[in-house]
Structure formats: structure tokens, C-alpha cells
């Protein structure tokens, strides 16, 4: 392995650690309870045959071991806090620390969802303020914060469309979805009882207007469009698209995953979108947490408002805030309680810390960064679609394929260079896609290191493709066998399971 070009990372000693069950032994304790101040009960007597005997292989370990266990395994993760995380479509931006602090304030973190409204005014104020901000940001008329993530928001939005069309007499049968769309879009349409009809992109990677015109008819409930789309391109014909739909009685859903390209610069409500979701865990900086939690508020135009999930936060006659459950046309509840409130707190903290000028600057920097990367790498990697990029840029591995190197290999080699890879093989319209979204959180220096690394890998592909195909070489585990994992799934630890040497 030649490391001469690697400027950003070095190998360093790192602790091994088995599974927590492998540390367990009977009698170790990580807890202590206060003395019981009421009479103890005999569980067998109280519960009868429902009483549980024992808790099987649950671990028994001390606090010190717990700290070490989770600290050690945490060091095996890459994270935003360590460096650039240019996963396209994921908007991995800085997760501000103040967000974490305010989300943990007593009074907010300890609030029971069913505590009376009059002692919940602070929490309601947060939801209301966030709602107001998001409405202006999107240019929409009404909003629900209930959905727990993007896909959940999509479902909510499509249910709104269904309910609205049904109230007009016919919910219709199909949803149009571009081939560049994220997998959650078609999966969502299916859950909502719609058939999915594929909409081809044109040569520029955009919605093909003639096709749309041809496919749009009285069976089509709406179109789920991502804008900018997953190629990072703004759908220039967006007004026309909306028109085509609206003319035939359809509605336009916008997947707002890419709002980081628009906040403060353009508003979906202004360009014809009827309903959309936001990913607070992307655009509004709530942390991804290794896969979640997220939050997927859904904003819509007036015509869809009656159908929003219940309850909604409203200002009551006496000026206090409260929940409105009396929504007869509502599509129903999509989640118990009020959504991922902790994420609402963080997103609002992000908005307040930025203000209108900070939000706009953020968007500008995100777009600037993507275009900078594009400019610097377009000689080294194939750019399948040449339209002007917004917040992300999608290359393909066509050049590198000649040496048998695929996007997934380049991604693994980036790890050796100290970076998290970009999004691999998505969107599907680009065979061998390298989807790069730097976000606004990267400095010019970090971008330059990334560009250097990508260029160095391009050279390696020419000179020593094996090096790239067998990457990563610097990690504590080498390339993991995903095929074997799926063939004979081992989804839990069992006592006596063999451990390989070195753990």
C-alpha cells in the first residue's frame, strides 16, 4: 500500500472490544437502586403465571466496563465531527452543540406528552414557532410536525393528496415518479394504495415534459418530484410541470430532501408545489445519530390543510396554545403523540442561530461547495449530466470502469484517504454513480483535501487498480463480506458463538 499521497489521515493504535455479552459475568453490576419505600411484593404472588423467571442472556457488567465498551466501539465510527461526510442526498452538515443542550433542558426533556396543555405552553410555543418559520421557508400555508422522518412525511403528504382528491370525488389510481427518485418515493406511494408509474428523465436528467404530458391523465393523482432532483439539478420547468398536473386535476408533491439548495433563495410554495416534506435531519441540522431519529414535517397549500393529521398546534381564543383534535377531514394520525419533538427543538435552535441571513448564506455556501468540487473533478471523473449543479454533483465511474474499478471501490479507497465516501450507485439513472454533497459545513481546505484525494485515486486507478479494488487498507476490519451476511443471516449473538482471533 502506497500512502504517499494521503495527507489527511494516518493509522493509529485502536482498542479491540468484543460484544457486551462477552464481558458479562454473574454478579457484576452497573446499577444500584434506591431503597424501596413501599412494601416489597412477591412477584410470583402478584403476577401468578405471568411472572417471569429470569432474563436469559442479558448482560451483567459494571459501569466502568460500559463506559469502555461504548467508548471503544465509538472510535470505530467515522462522523461529521471527524471530517467531511459527503454522502449525496444526506446533507451531512454540522450538528451544533447548542441544539443538544437546549433539547436536554429540564422542562422540555422531561415533559410527558399527556401533561395538561396549560403546563405545556413552552413546548407548544416551540412547535408553533418552528411551524411558522418552516412555513415562510417553504412558502406554504399549513404544516404538521408529526411525521418521524422523510419517508413518513412522504406518506403523510400522499395521504393528503388522496384525501383531497377523494373529497373531490375520485382519489385516482396512480402516482408518477421519476426514475431518478429515491426509493422511499415509490415505496410510499404503494403504502398509500397507489400504483407507481415511472416517469423517464430526459437527456438533461430532468423531467421529460412531453412524457409527463403524455402520461398525465385522470388516473394520475400526482407527481412526486425531488427538486433539485437527485442529480443536483433544479427542474427549470417546474412551473410548467405544476401546470400540467394541475390542469388535469393532479397535485404536485415535492420531496424536500434537497432543500439545502433552496432555503432563503427560493420557495416551493412559490413555484407550484402543493405539498412537500422537509427533513429536519438534513436541511435543519438535527443529528443523524447513526441512522436516526429524523423528523419529516409536511407543509402544504390551503387546499390540503383540512386533511392534515391531528392534532395540530393552534392558538386558542384565550391566547394560549393548544392541540386541535377536532379535524373531521383529517387523514388521521401518522404517529402517536406529536412527532419527534426533540428534533423540533433542535431544528428551531438551528434556525434561530442562523437567522434569515445565516440561512441564506448557508444555502449559498452549500451550492458553492458543490460547484467547486465539480469544477475541480470534472476532468478526472465522468460527468454524465452537464446541467448546472446546485448543492450536489453526480459523477460516474465510466472512466474507471475501463480498469475494472467501480464506484464502490473508489468509495472504499476514499476511506484510506481519511474521508467518508460519497453516496454509491444512487441515483439509479446514473450507472456507477458517485453522488457528492459537501454541504456548507466544509472549509475550502477540507474540500481541497477531498479533491486531492479523488484525483490521487483516479491516478491510482490507472497505475495500480488492485490497490483500489482491495481497499480499504487502513481500517481495523478490511472489506466486509456483505454477500455472506445475507446468505446465512446471523442477526443476534448467541452464547457460545465463536469469536475470531484478534477480538
Amino acid at each position, binding site marked *: 500500500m502506497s500512502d504517499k499521497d494521503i495527507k489527511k489521515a494516518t493509522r493509529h493504535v485502536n482498542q479491540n472490544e468484543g460484544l457486551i455479552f462477552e464481558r458479562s459475568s454473574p454478579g457484576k453490576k*452497573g446499577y444500584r437502586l434506591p431503597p424501596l419505600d*413501599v412494601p416489597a411484593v412477591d412477584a410470583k404472588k402478584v403476577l401468578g403465571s405471568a411472572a417471569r423467571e429470569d432474563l436469559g442472556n442479558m448482560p451483567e457488567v459494571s459501569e466502568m466496563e460500559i463506559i469502555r*465498551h461504548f467508548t471503544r466501539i465509538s472510535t470505530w465510527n467515522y462522523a461529521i465531527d471527524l471530517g467531511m461526510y459527503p454522502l449525496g442526498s444526506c446533507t451531512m452538515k454540522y450538528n451544533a452543540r*447548542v441544539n443538544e443542550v437546549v433539547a436536554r433542558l429540564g422542562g422540555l426533556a422531561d415533559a410527558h406528552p399527556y401533561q*395538561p396543555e396549560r403546563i405545556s405552553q413552552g413546548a407548544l410555543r416551540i412547535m408553533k414557532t418552528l411551524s411558522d418559520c418552516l412555513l415562510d421557508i417553504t412558502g406554504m400555508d399549513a404544516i404538521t410536525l408529526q411525521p418521524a422522518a422523510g419517508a413518513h412525511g412522504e406518506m403523510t403528504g400522499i395521504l393528503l393528496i388522496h384525501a383531497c382528491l377523494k373529497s373531490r370525488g375520485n382519489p385516482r389510481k396512480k402516482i408518477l415518479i421519476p426514475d431518478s427518485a429515491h426509493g422511499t418515493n415509490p415505496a410510499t406511494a404503494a403504502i398509500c394504495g397507489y400504483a407507481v408509474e415511472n416517469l423517464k428523465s430526459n437527456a438533461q436528467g430532468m423531467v421529460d415534459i412531453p412524457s409527463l404530458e403524455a402520461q398525465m391523465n385522470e388516473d394520475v393523482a400526482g407527481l412526486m418530484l425531488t427538486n433539485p432532483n437527485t442529480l443536483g439539478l433544479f427542474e427549470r420547468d417546474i412551473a410548467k410541470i405544476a401546470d400540467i398536473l394541475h390542469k388535469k386535476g393532479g397535485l404536485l408533491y415535492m420531496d424536500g430532501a434537497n432543500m439545502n439548495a433552496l432555503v432563503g433563495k427560493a420557495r416551493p410554495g412559490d413555484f407550484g408545489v402543493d405539498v412537500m416534506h422537509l427533513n429536519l435531519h438534513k436541511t435543519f441540522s438535527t443529528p443523524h445519530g447513526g*441512522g436516526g431519529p429524523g423528523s419529516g414535517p409536511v407543509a402544504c397549500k390551503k387546499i390540503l390543510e383540512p386533511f392534515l393529521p391531528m392534532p395540530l398546534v393552534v392558538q386558542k381564543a384565550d391566547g394560549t396554545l393548544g392541540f386541535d383534535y377536532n379535524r373531521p377531514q383529517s387523514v388521521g394520525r401518522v404517529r402517536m403523540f406529536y412527532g419527534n419533538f426533540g428534533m423540533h427543538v433542535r431544528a428551531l435552535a438551528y434556525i434561530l442561530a442562523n437567522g434569515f441571513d445565516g440561512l441564506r448564506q448557508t444555502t449559498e455556501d452549500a451550492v*458553492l461547495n458543490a460547484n467547486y468540487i465539480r469544477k475541480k473533478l470534472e476532468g478526472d471523473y465522468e460527468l454524465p449530466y452537464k446541467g448546472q449543479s446546485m448543492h450536489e454533483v453526480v459523477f460516474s465511474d465510466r472512466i474507471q470502469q475501463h480498469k475494472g474499478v467501480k464506484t464502490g471501490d473508489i468509495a472504499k479507497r476514499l476511506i484510506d484517504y481519511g474521508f467518508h465516501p460519497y453516496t454509491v450507485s444512487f441515483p439509479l439513472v446514473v450507472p456507477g454513480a458517485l453522488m457528492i454533497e459537501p454541504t456548507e459545513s466544509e472549509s475550502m481546505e477540507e474540500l481541497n483535501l477531498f479533491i486531492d484525494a479523488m484525483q490521487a485515486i483516479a491516478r491510482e486507478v490507472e497505475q495500480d487498480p488492485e490497490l483500489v479494488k482491495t481497499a480499504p487498507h487502513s481500517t481495523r476490519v*478490511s472489506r466486509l463480506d456483505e454477500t455472506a451476511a445475507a446468505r446465512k443471516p446471523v442477526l443476534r449473538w448467541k452464547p457460545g458463538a465463536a469469536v475470531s482471533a484478534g477480538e
Partner: protein
Amino acid sequence: MRYLPKSPADRQQMLREIGCKTIDDLFEPIPAEYRLKRDLNVPRQMAESEVIEFFHQCAATNAARYAVFLGAGAYHHYRPVVIDSLISRGEFFTAYTPYQPEIAQGTLQAIFEFQTMICELTGMEVANASMYDASTGTAEAIMMGVRLTGRNSAVVARTVHPEYREVIKTYTQHQALPIAECGYKEDGRLDLAELEKKITDDTAAVLIQSPNFFGTIEDVAAIADLVHRKGALLVVAISEALSLGAVRPPAEADIVAMESQSFGVPLGFGGPYAGVLATKEKYVRQIPGRLVGETRDRDGKRGFVLTLSTREQHIRREKATSNICTNQALIATMATIYMTIYGREGLKELAHQNLAKATYAAGEFSKKAKVLFGGAPRFNEFVVQTREDSYEINSRLLEKKMIGGFPLRKFYPELGNAALWCCTELNSKEQIDAAVEAVGQ
């Protein structure tokens, strides 16, 4: 803006290298008429101290340090400080979904441990990496039952959390998947006779909850017997996960849909929490959500990866088992740390403390009011029926800095002035006595 790592000179240089004059050149793809020409109508940029002050003010107009007797799907338990200390490591909370396993073994191993512990506690064979919460989890479990059986309807007990039932209705409304409800008997348990009638040849799944919404523990084995005899699957929801420290796991179920909030997750005005689905190994290819599996690297070293992703939306699109993508990974990690701290003995001891508190409280309440459903065992919740209106009682309690039980009238009008009370290890005897006193006034 203090989060942005660029100087004005950096921006100028980058624009130059791109070949643009102004930043607005980069926004040229957006038709001019749709470009926003004004500032957003959001508050001005605040200093960090101002942001904190804003939320402090909000927190101050919320309840704090009240005695809480609410459960009903969200439980107040002590949260060991180790949890937040560990999940606050940037390596955990600022990582994405572990798509690149070689630099995500921390998240993957933690979730693998989560899956294992959920299996141990529920008596199931496999568990997924998490769902949004138990309400969406139960809906997904029913849809999974439909896929597994090829049948197209379901029966849901009325003693399942009312909001879970609302969510199920929302999820299934356009799936040609009719949902029947099944009532409860005098002892607060599912009416087996009614259930027998409600299950048809088209019933894919029966959903119950245990401990159910009244806090009553169902006879899962008997229900499973009946359901299985009818060729349907049994889904058991668990909203109070801590019950598993004292209550026999629903091992006879086919799918368990559990809410993990009790395991170290803040009440947080209702979220984020973490649902999880667990099932039998043979059903794993129909489970929704992510799964972490064990594998080896090129040198034979153990490692973990996301697996069986052909079930998922990013591969299968409209044919996927679910549309879920982002889940509740960090919350599952919180639960994993919590389960590790208490562990084999602690969860039991803690559950028994809850049992003792609720037993004592129910005993005391029964001196002043009617405690319903005495005929069946319960965990840490119980229903108190009063002559006085539940909301009025609660208003009185509020003045004494106590948050009373959850009024049941909205969802169970047949119970009159009844409220669901919850007592955990955090309710001192003193608090309980004071609440009983106030209710009995």
C-alpha cells in the same frame, strides 16, 4: 454565521476558480421569478446565549419537577447519566446510517447488541434495528402479517393503546385491509369469546397489547392458542418495555412490536422514541426496517453489516416491505446502554420495584375510590374510577405540583370517570400518599 467555515476571501477565491462573478450566478438554474427577493421572515440571527435563553423561557413555562402519575404509553423512569454521556460522543450522534461498514463498526455493533437484547427480552428469535415508534411499528407488524399469511384483514384489541389504533387506521386505510376491533372483559383482559367470533378466514393478524392500555397483563398463551388455531398470526404490542423485567415474555407471539422508550429515553413531550419489531427467524424476510448481521472481513475477522436489504425501499422500491429509511438508531443505542446498565438482574429488580409501587398505590387508591380490573394481574398501571370528573381531579392535583392519571373518558366513555394511573420507581410513597389524599378529597 459562526457555523460556516469560510472567510469572505475564501468565497471570492472559490467563485473565481469556478468562473463565476457572484454567488447568484450559481442560482441561475432557478427561474428568476421564483428566486426570493426578500429576507426570510424568521427571527434575526441570535447569539448562542440568546438561543439558550429563548429555550430556557420555554422550558420555564412548561412543568418541571412535578410528581408525574401519567403513563399511557410514555413512562417516567430514572435515566442513568452514562447514557447521555456516551451517546453525546460525536462518533455516535454525528454519524450517518452505517452504509460503509468498515468505518461504522461502532454503530453496527451497538445495533447488533440491541437486536440481541430485544430477542432475549421478548423471547423472539430476530429483531430489527428499530422503527419510528410502537404506533407505526404495530401498523407495520399487521402489514407484515398480511404479507406472511396472504390474508387481508386484522383484528385489534380495544385495549391496545388508542393512539396506536389510530395510527394503524391511518396506515391501512388504502390497503383494502379492514380492521375489526375486539372488546375486553370485566377483568380488563381481551374478550376471548368475542375474539373467536371476530377472527375470520381472512384474518391475517390479531394485535393485542400486554400489559394492555389498562395496565393489565393479557393471557398471551391462551390468546396465541386461539389465534394460531384460526391460522392467523399473533402480534403483541408492548408499550411499557420495563414490564419485561417482571412479566413472562410473549414468546407465543409471531411478532412483537415494542416501544423502547422506557429504556432510558427521555419523555421529551412524546419523542423521539424507538419502536422495534421482533419475530421468528422464519419470518425475517418479511420484516420491515434495517437489520444488522454478522459477517467476516477478508482476514476472517468478525464484523457487522446492514443486511437483507433486498427487503428495503432503496432496492425494492414499490415492492419493499416498508417505506421506512431513516429509523431511530441513536434512540435504540440509548436503549441498548440502558439495558446494559441494568442488565439481567437490574431490570428484574427495577421491574419489581415498579410492581411494588403500583401495588401499594392501587391498594391505597382502593380505599378512596374504585380500582377497576382487579381480577387480572397488572404491572405499573391501574385504572381508578371516581365519582368526581377526572379532569377536575387533575386540576386540583396540578396546584399541588402533581400530574394526575390519564382520563379515559375520551377513548373509553363506558368507564365513566376513570383515569389510568402509573407508578414507577420515581414515585415516592410520599407522592403516592399525597395523590391518594387529593383524589379522595
